[in-house]
């Protein structure tokens, strides 16, 4: 697979759950167009879904007046996805580990874990004036599908 193209797609949505799929579909199509197989595209789309859902629910507290911005930048085989919300942020260190036996039967807390499973890197930044940005990266040439990701 050869890729010398660059691609940039940006979308801003209001904080409604029904808008999550719009962003997920963009991610999947971008991956498919880059030659990623269906499984690989699906898992990247799932990471995006989880990120946007968190931005809507935890970041923007379901306030439909607040926006979630998603930016997709593909340079060669490096895909960088940025999901930004208008929330106050959180402490990533305080997110519980869903693999801890004490947390296994919890009904929430797996979203960030899935993002980290399906993407190469996941990094949060919190803006002094408010707002949180999540940056996820994936090298599309390094194999796709969940078997090739770290669990």
């Amino acid at each position, binding site marked *: 697979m050869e890729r010398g193209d660059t691609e940039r797609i940006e979308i801003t949505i209001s904080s*409604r*759950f*029904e808008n*999550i799929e719009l962003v997920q579909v963009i991610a999947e199509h971008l991956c498919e167009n880059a030659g990623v197989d269906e*499984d690989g595209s*699906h898992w990247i789309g*799932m990471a995006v*879904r*989880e990120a946007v*859902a968190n931005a809507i*629910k935890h970041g923007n507290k379901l306030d439909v007046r607040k926006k979630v911005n998603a930016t997709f930048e593909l340079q060669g085989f490096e895909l960088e996805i940025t999901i930004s919300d208008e929330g106050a942020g959180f402490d990533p260190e305080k997110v519980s580990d*869903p*693999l801890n036996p004490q947390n*296994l*039967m*919890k*009904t*929430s*807390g*797996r*979203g960030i*874990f*899935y993002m980290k*499973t399906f993407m190469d890197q996941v990094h949060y930044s919190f803006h002094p004036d408010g707002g949180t940005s999540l940056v996820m990266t994936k090298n599309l040439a390094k194999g796709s599908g*969940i078997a090739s990701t770290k*669990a």
Partner: protein
Amino acid sequence: MKATTRTVDDVEIIGLEGKITIGAGDTQLREVITNAVNSGKQKILLDMSKVTTIDSSGIGELVGSYTTVTNRGGKLKLLHLPAKLNELLHVTQLITVFEVYENEREAVGSF
């Protein structure tokens, strides 16, 4: 999400169809299970074959459903897991929690 129910040998088989995702299906799943338990159903088999999409919220509701049924003295098991859902349960080690079947007769007989 749509849910259809039928009974086989006093096992309530609930067929789920569509999405079990945040804001679309997750709370519906909770309602379906709550209704079944409140109706006295102790043996519940979720047929997942027509589930098209599930996210972490949907997974959470599956876990919650299992807890709800178990706390009421019942059993909840899964049938016909789609491959991607199977992988989601594996990476979070939830596959060790649920009994999963590919054959309905075998699943019904396991209760």
